[in-house]
């Protein structure tokens, strides 16, 4: 096997919050690696440090301990070897679809003008936005905006794609279609992906491996190999083995939530 695209060793992060005596241990000695061409999903209860971990990998946040290696180099700050797909699309409202997909490449300065134009069109076609090149983000649906967000990240040709709940803001139906679309696109581009999500079914459907984070402190808890054959279709979600695996993962998350007092809190809140 080739060398992993992401190697996190004992990555820790604490936040000091105004008015609180003790720091929040957002990440406590998290070690994790993502192999070349692998699709890894991270799930875990809310507040367990998934976004924090992804932001550290993206170089947008500094870690306090341990090391983060991306494509063979120690990370300190953002790099041209990775691209982030954000939960909110974060498109420049004054640029068209074409301009927004091109934007990442313009900042990376790796391709010349002609190459950028060619790649922009190629990735717009790949994510199925052909015909919407000249629309501004305000004239796109939420799902279409996320396609632009994805195309912008893919177009820079990163070694690893970092995705933080990219479909969370979409309605359930669009989300399912986008999951299937993402697998098609992934099959065509063969990128390494680290994908953070709340939805266990999303994680199991997409991933080669699902990593479960525990909370308080945020840490690596367990991982599950997912070896359903590819290409996968949405009907896989009704397969009994799929549901069984989801149950296993859900059990772990529930246990974590209970231990952290999250579930108990919800119960008491729900009582009239």
């Amino acid at each position, binding site marked *: 096997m080739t060398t992993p695209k992401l190697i996190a060793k004992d990555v820790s992060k604490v936040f000091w919050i105004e008015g609180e005596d003790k720091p929040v241990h957002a990440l406590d000695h998290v070690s994790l690696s993502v192999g070349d061409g692998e699709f890894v999903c991270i799930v875990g209860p809310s507040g367990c440090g998934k976004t924090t971990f992804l932001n550290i990998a993206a170089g947008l946040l500094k870690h306090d301990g341990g090391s983060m290696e991306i494509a063979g180099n120690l990370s300190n700050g*953002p*790099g041209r070897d990775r691209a*982030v797909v*954000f939960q909110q699309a974060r498109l420049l409202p004054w640029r*068209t679809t074409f301009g927004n997909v091109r934007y990442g490449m*313009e900042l990376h300065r790796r391709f010349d003008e002609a190459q950028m134009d060619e790649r922009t069109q190629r990735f717009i076609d790949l994510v199925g936005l052909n015909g919407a090149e000249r629309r501004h983000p*305000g*004239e796109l649906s939420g799902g279409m905006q996320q396609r632009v967000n994805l195309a912008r990240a893919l177009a820079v040709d990163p070694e690893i794609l970092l995705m933080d709940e990219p479909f969370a803001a979409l309605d359930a139906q669009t989300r399912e279609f986008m999951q299937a679309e993402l697998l098609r696109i992934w099959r065509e581009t063969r990128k390494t992906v680290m994908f953070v999500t709340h939805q266990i079914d999303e994680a199991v459907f997409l991933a080669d491996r699902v990593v479960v984070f525990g909370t308080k402190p945020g840490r690596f808890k367990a991982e599950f190999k997912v070896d359903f054959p590819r290409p996968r279709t949405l009907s896989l979600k009704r397969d009994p083995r799929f549901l069984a695996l989801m149950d296993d993962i859900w059990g772990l998350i529930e246990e974590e939530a209970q231990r952290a007092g999250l579930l108990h809190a919800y119960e008491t809140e729900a009582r009239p």
Partner: protein
Amino acid sequence: MTVQSLQAEPAAVAAQPVLVRPTKSFYKRNDSFMVGAASVIVFTAVWEALWAAGFINELFFSGPSAIFARLYSGLFTRGDMLEHVWFSAQNFLSGFLIATALGIPLGILLGWYRAPRLVLDPFITAFYSTPRIVFVPLIIMWFGLGLGSKVVIVFMSAFFPILLNVMAGVRTTDDQLLGAGRAFCATQWDLFRTIVLPSSVPFIIVGLRQGLAHGLIGVVVGEFFAGSSGIGYLIGEAANSFKTDLLFACVFIVAGVGIGVSALLQQIEQHFQRWRPANN
């Protein structure tokens, strides 16, 4: 069964949507201008009627025809207003252009970098919250009765609104967009060029429009206070000698410049804001 019963329904609405780009009538496209123009015309007509009927005392007020006649002779036949208009125009343009040339870059700098902002903030706040008119006598003392002091007064009037609006525009730049830029390895200059500047355009325009209004006040007040030329001086003179037609002619010139430049700025803003989805 359901399908059949649906088919049995009488076709009350057209089966196909009309696939023609909706065109707006000439009135719909220009409604704000046309309503505005009509309202001004009606107002002027009523005013002129009252004036012609002799309801208005010439000593304290004037009528549209008299004002227009005075404006015409002052600018074209007698030409006695030209010298003053030219003097004021020089004062205003120099002061306003210097204020723009310094206010926009400085506003960007102070909006973007924290350290210089912390240093200059107390002074900016102090200057901005003090009515600039209190400095007028001092400025006249320092810069004399001529052009110099007027330019400084216009500059001071226009500079702070421009500076503060540009600062606000830069500081309210969407953090999410900046984060996206950073994730793609944007340099500071990239962030500025591709995110901060485009998103600040509306603020810059608002700053210029406020600066314009304050600058016009500045030029009139400055000339009013001291010196012997300019529109402001002429207004004072006209009032002292009850030449109400001349006074109103001056007022209309100032108002006309304000409206004209403001409309120009609005055009510029619209040019930069074409991407905003139209909401009528």
